[in-house]
């Protein structure tokens, strides 16, 4: 469509205020929607990170012994519990640990190459484990071996952690030993070295906060049982048995020993619940941004429809005159579409500037990442299309104005 732009511009000059208002509205909407989309995508990326474990078949039981039994007693109690768990119908395997991926609490340690290194090379999540851990979690061993039953030691909460053997995530192996196989290498948590005997494909850490983002994939398993009053049993169920096992597991443990607390609500959790708790903030933020964007676009569209309808109403006589002088319906339609496009272009130019400034403000004040060009382009395209869509109905109405209107007074 070949539309002369100059007459449209000069006509716009007669209703500057309305045009400026639409420009402003489009600009602000673009700035907000771009940033909102960007936040949504970042959150989704954060939530989509895999844990590396078979989430669908894992239950986690949080157990607390009453009365601070001595370590030997706790160890015996845990041995009994694990035997019960592994024999439960529907249970494939189980082990005891201090934490689970995404669980939110646990232990992070600095890893060193030498015992007297001042600043640790990286932090890593430490999971207490035994020879059942890999099978229970369903993580894939990509190098080396699993723990042997005779390697599993016992520690209490404040013992120095110096296991002779450890299994690390591939991410951690790559961080510590980027140029060589990590297998057989030694690392230090305290003053005694630990040898890496196995590497697993992926095992996410237990913390999801921003402070842990850098090392969230760097985890290690230690062949120790932690004899502490608080702990977790990680239980792997056979396919389709999740609900059945979840319903009876606490009862079976209470039957063996009642001097414990397994909270009614949060004591037995399916891994999906742990995941949704861990990411509640991210999901919530994404929903909020989504709702704001959709409603905002709707309101902007409504505003354009309203103002354009008014302009069409105001100009019925002029449209009639143009029609009487030979303009086709398409010419009238094109006129309003082009007019809107010009206004929208003004809006998106201003909007892109606003979007970038808003993002820069958030980068400096709220530790956000830089807005990528893709989101700007998506936003610009969305608003241009939105403008054209919104103007279509009033423009079609304008195109149906009959030439006879030219002879009528308003």
């Amino acid at each position: 469509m070949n539309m002369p732009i100059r007459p449209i511009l000069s006509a716009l000059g007669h209703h500057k205020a309305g045009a400026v208002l639409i420009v402003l509205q489009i600009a602000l909407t673009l700035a907000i929607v771009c940033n909102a989309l960007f936040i949504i995508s970042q959150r989704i990326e954060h939530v989509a990170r895999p844990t590396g474990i078979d989430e669908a078949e894992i239950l986690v039981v949080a157990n607390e012994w009453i009365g601070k039994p001595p370590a030997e007693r706790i160890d015996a109690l845990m041995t009994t519990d694990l035997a019960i768990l592994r024999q439960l119908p529907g249970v494939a395997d189980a082990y005891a640990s201090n934490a689970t991926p995404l669980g939110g609490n646990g232990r992070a340690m600095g890893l060193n190459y030498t015992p007297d290194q001042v600043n640790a090379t990286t932090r890593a999540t430490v999971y207490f484990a035994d020879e059942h851990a890999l099978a229970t979690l369903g993580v894939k061993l990509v190098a080396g071996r699993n723990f042997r039953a005779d390697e599993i030691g016992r520690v209490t909460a404040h013992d120095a952690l110096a296991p002779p053997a450890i299994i690390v995530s591939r991410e951690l192996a790559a961080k510590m030993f980027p140029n060589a196989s990590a297998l057989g290498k030694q690392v230090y948590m305290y003053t005694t070295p630990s040898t890496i005997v196995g590497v697993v494909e992926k095992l996410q850490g237990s913390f999801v906060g921003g402070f842990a983002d850098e090392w969230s994939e760097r985890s290690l398993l230690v062949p120790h049982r932690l004899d502490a009053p608080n702990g977790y049993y990680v239980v792997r169920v056979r396919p389709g048995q999740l609900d059945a096992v979840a319903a009876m597991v606490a009862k079976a443990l209470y039957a063996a020993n009642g001097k414990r607390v397994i909270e009614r609500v949060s004591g037995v959790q399916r891994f999906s619940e742990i995941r949704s708790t861990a990411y509640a903030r991210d999901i919530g933020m994404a929903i909020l941004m989504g709702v704001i964007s959709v409603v905002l676009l709707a309101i902007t569209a409504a505003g354009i429809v309203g103002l354009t309808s008014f302009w069409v109403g105001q100009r019925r006589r002029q449209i009639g005159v143009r029609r009487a002088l030979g303009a086709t319906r398409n010419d009238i339609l094109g006129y309003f579409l082009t007019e809107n496009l010009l206004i929208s272009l003004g809006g998106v130019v201003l909007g892109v500037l606003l979007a970038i400034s808003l993002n820069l403000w958030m980068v400096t004040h709220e530790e956000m990442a830089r807005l990528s060009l893709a989101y700007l382009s998506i936003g610009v395209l969305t608003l241009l299309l939105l403008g054209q869509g919104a103007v279509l109905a009033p423009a079609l109405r304008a195109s149906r104005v009959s030439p006879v209107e030219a002879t009528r007074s308003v």
Partner: protein
Amino acid sequence: MFGYYAQLGLRSLRRNPVLTALMVMAIGFGVAASMITYAVFRAISGDPMPWKSAQLFVPQVDNWGPQSHGPDNEPPDMLGYVDATALMNAHAAQRQVATYPISFPVQPADAAVTPFSVDGYATYADFFGMFEVPFRYGSGWSAADDQRHADSVVISSRLNDELFGGANSVGREIRLDDRSYRIVGVMQHWDPHPRFYDVANDNAFAAAADFYLPFTRAIDLKTETNGHSNCNGHAGIGWDGMLRGQCTWISLWVELPDAAALQNYRSFLQGYAAEQQRSGRFPWAPNIRLRNLTQWLDHEQVVPQESKVALLLGLGFLAVCLINTVGLLLAKFMRRASEIGVRRALGAARREIYLQFLVEAGAVGCAGGVLGLLLTGIGVLGVGLVFEPDIARLARLDLSLVGLTLLVAIGATLVAAFYPTWRAARVQPAWQLKAG
């Protein structure tokens, strides 16, 4: 005249129901978006004790040394046991409390009720006076109880309701983790938010704690912290290492009522750190901080990023809705240019035109406010979908938020109406009459 204008306004609003509905919706949505995000922001960013926050301070002493910190050389945000108890025993402030979060299983007297876990704090006698904790029954324990490591406990009214049916339980026993404690006080509901005294453990918005017992007793029982314990280097082996080593896990608060007390305490703290350097315990220059409550909340970045960004976008949303309203009002008013022309020709002053159209806009604002209120109510109920439950439970629609919602809606609409009204009042009667 006002009544007449109101009538005119209503008639005009009825004449263009679609345009009117659009405006009301724009204002309603805009106000609701900003009010919902504001309700959350207000709930979590406030000063929990505005009358006293300038007198409550958090001392920090660097027990890790400069090589463990970033360029700002910020000391750890909690203290180790050695420093916390040394500062407690010095009694250099009017009141001082060392606190750390703990969790115990409760064993109800009724054996049929299964034990459950409750969260609480190990703290000192001054806690209750310093933070002005309200009591339903009894009171806090005494400084003498701290001295003799007493089995005293203060419980929340919630726990009292659950265990004792709300009766006065002072003097009775409660079983916590297989030990008996004597209840000395039952709090009234007390849930300051943010929970300023425990933000270092990310408990700023956790549900109210259920019990408090003497710090000295908790340490005797080797009670582990239920919060963070940050250890530097190779410290902290065994429980003794936890106490003697350089793990930080205790929050200290002091009450300093005036500038002189603050000055004295600051030099005391500086002196304490210098003494540690002299004795060779910390071989680095004294590195201390002494922030008051509001500075502390700010430093710990208690208000989550989500909430700030949401508020910002909520306000942006309101701005878009207002610009939208300006446009629609302009369209609406200018469409009636001929009516204005007639009124002006018949002798109406500009002032009267102003009044007429502002009344009409006010009516739109009222309707938008009511819709906004409705949406805000729904939004505050649904805020749990978006914010963490701990934070969502704090956001509520109270009288002041209702008032603010209506005020913002009407105020914003009148501001938005100003330009369209000005344009309407400038209509030239002669031109309109001729054109008509």
